């Protein structure tokens, strides 16, 4: 290949008497330069070279792009190595496929079909999980118990510091805001009732559920999603093992078990956080604790506990579900993790509202 470029690439066309388009190419063809543009009419063409000094793959690429749809193409006047590079591409590819671009209506329709499909898959996943649980109870499911103990550790014990921090701050903030209001009516002692009741019934479970979504759902979605990418779930299926039973069930069980415990822990820490603020000025520790214990009934505790079981299940299920339907790409795994957190938090808030109505109906 010559290394002395003498001029810019050029191409010109003329039509011969028999209707053949004669295309003359020449100059120095380099990928870093803008290439000439031509329009060829008809389905017969002949390409000749004139003062063609130098070329890299841009010339065969240009020839391929312009002449791939020409029925009778004569390249015999070109240098042999150039001919072979163009013919190689022609031979290797069959008819060039045109990509279809959807219109607005198709895009909307596809979105509708896909989203209804994704709800269908979500319900299917819940169904399979429930079925897997029943099969586990009768001892017929193959469950990875190693995963179960590992998740007790990672989703439960390892979450203690962050749950403690956020629980403490939640209690502290509530006490702080509550005190400002209660001081106006001279009822600062009730700040203990406010904090303890809110933590027990609502905030303990809600905060822990949200933390589980951020920590655990995303982790599960990435774990199962990347197993999807590397075909590990296919390998399980091929071995006759149901991936939902083997992978999702131990995770869901571990988190459903650990989130209520973490919620109880968060509740205590939150009450303590409130005490720090309340006792810094207005109340004595004894006053605060007496009020707090008086405010918490078994019913309130039960309400928070039931909620936290549900929130734990939602967080774990969202992660496992989004992971199992993740697309097989790095982007797909990232999307699965994001959507697991979004799905989990949304469902937790929705179910919190539903629980509020139900507990109100049952006067709990």
């Amino acid at each position: 290949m010559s290394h002395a470029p003498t001029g810019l690439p050029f191409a010109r066309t003329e039509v011969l008497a028999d209707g053949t388009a004669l295309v003359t190419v020449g100059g120095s063809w380099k990928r870093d330069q803008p290439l000439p543009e031509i329009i060829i009419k008809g389905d017969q063409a002949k390409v000749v070279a004139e003062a063609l000094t130098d070329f890299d793959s841009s010339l065969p690429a240009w020839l391929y792009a312009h002449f791939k749809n020409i029925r009778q193409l004569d390249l015999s006047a070109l240098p042999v190595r150039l001919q072979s590079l163009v013919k190689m591409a022609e031979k290797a590819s069959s008819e060039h496929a045109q990509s279809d671009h959807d219109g607005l209506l198709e895009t909307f329709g596809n979105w509708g079909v896909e989203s209804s499909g994704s709800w269908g898959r979500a319900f299917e996943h819940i169904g399979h999980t429930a079925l897997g649980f029943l099969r586990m109870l009768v001892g017929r499911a193959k469950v990875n118990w190693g995963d179960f103990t590992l998740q007790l550790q990672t989703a439960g014990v390892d979450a203690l510091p962050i749950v403690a921090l956020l629980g403490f701050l939640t209690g502290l903030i509530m006490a702080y805001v509550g005190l400002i209001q209660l001081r106006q009516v001279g009822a600062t002692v009730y700040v203990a009732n406010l904090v303890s009741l809110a933590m027990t019934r609502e905030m303990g479970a809600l905060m822990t559920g949200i933390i589980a979504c951020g920590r655990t759902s995303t982790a599960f979605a990435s774990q199962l999603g990347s197993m999807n990418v590397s075909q590990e779930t296919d390998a399980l299926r091929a071995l006759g093992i149901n991936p939902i039973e083997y992978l999702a069930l131990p995770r869901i069980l571990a988190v459903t078990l650990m989130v209520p415990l973490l919620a109880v822990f968060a509740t205590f820490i939150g009450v303590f956080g409130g005490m720090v603020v309340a006792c810094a000025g207005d109340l004595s520790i004894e006053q605060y604790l007496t009020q707090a214990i008086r405010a918490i009934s078994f019913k309130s505790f039960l309400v928070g506990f039931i909620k936290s079981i549900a929130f734990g299940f939602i967080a774990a299920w969202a992660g496992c579900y989004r992971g199992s339907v993740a697309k097989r790409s790095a982007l797909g795994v990232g999307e699965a993790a994001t959507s697991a957190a979004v799905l989990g938090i949304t469902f937790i808030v929705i179910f919190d509202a539903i629980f509020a109505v139900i507990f109100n109906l049952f006067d709990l």
Partner: protein
Amino acid sequence: MSDTPDILTCTDLAIGHGKTVIMDRLNLSLAPGKILAIVGPSGCGKSTLMRALGGLDEPLGGKTTLMGVDLAAAHGQERQDILRQSGFLFQGAALFSSLTLRENIEMPMREFLKAPRKDIRQLAEYKLALVGLADAMDKLPSEISGGMAKRAGIARAMALDPAVIFLDEPSAGLDPLSSGRLDELILRLREAYGTTIVLVSHEIPSILRTADFCVYLDPDTGTMSAYGPPKGFLQAGNSPKVHAFFSQARFD
């Protein structure tokens, strides 16, 4: 061609994983435009040698030069420039999973070429057509077969018209027709651009068709036991082990 400096050399090269040496005393040199095949039993360090030759991994000892540059002494920008002039096909193709095939090929071009977008697109389509993937340009790597991914990986290795291309098991997983076409493509690339090609392969017929030189890595001795034109390996000559490997593979 005898006065042309070698494009790739290694002197007393030692390679391995971590600190464990698996092959040493490796001495090779390859003139531009030649095709070298690295063969040997599984796990003998073929891919590791190729990665060291291409400058992807640091060798445990010895010296390698690529395009006249000592790889151990090349750092930063100089090393990046050398790597840019070589193309790599990895064993698992290593396509970017969230990009379509066309985008996979366009990616290095967009980064390094100043050409207009339209011309880059044209180049990418041509490179994919060269490996027979003109119909699959808009597919994602997850939507194509392993053999197709291999071919797309080769197209990406060729994206920047490199001077040296390293191919790790290019024809593994390909049907005989595609494999034959790939051999032809390798020969054409060398013929048209003078590209130097280093390949790791188990396909003896393909090696006999394409390679100018062949190096056999022997795990028993921990070094290379033969270097020369592959046709010579078929004759019972210097090394009975190499002859047995080639003959066995040939008649399998």
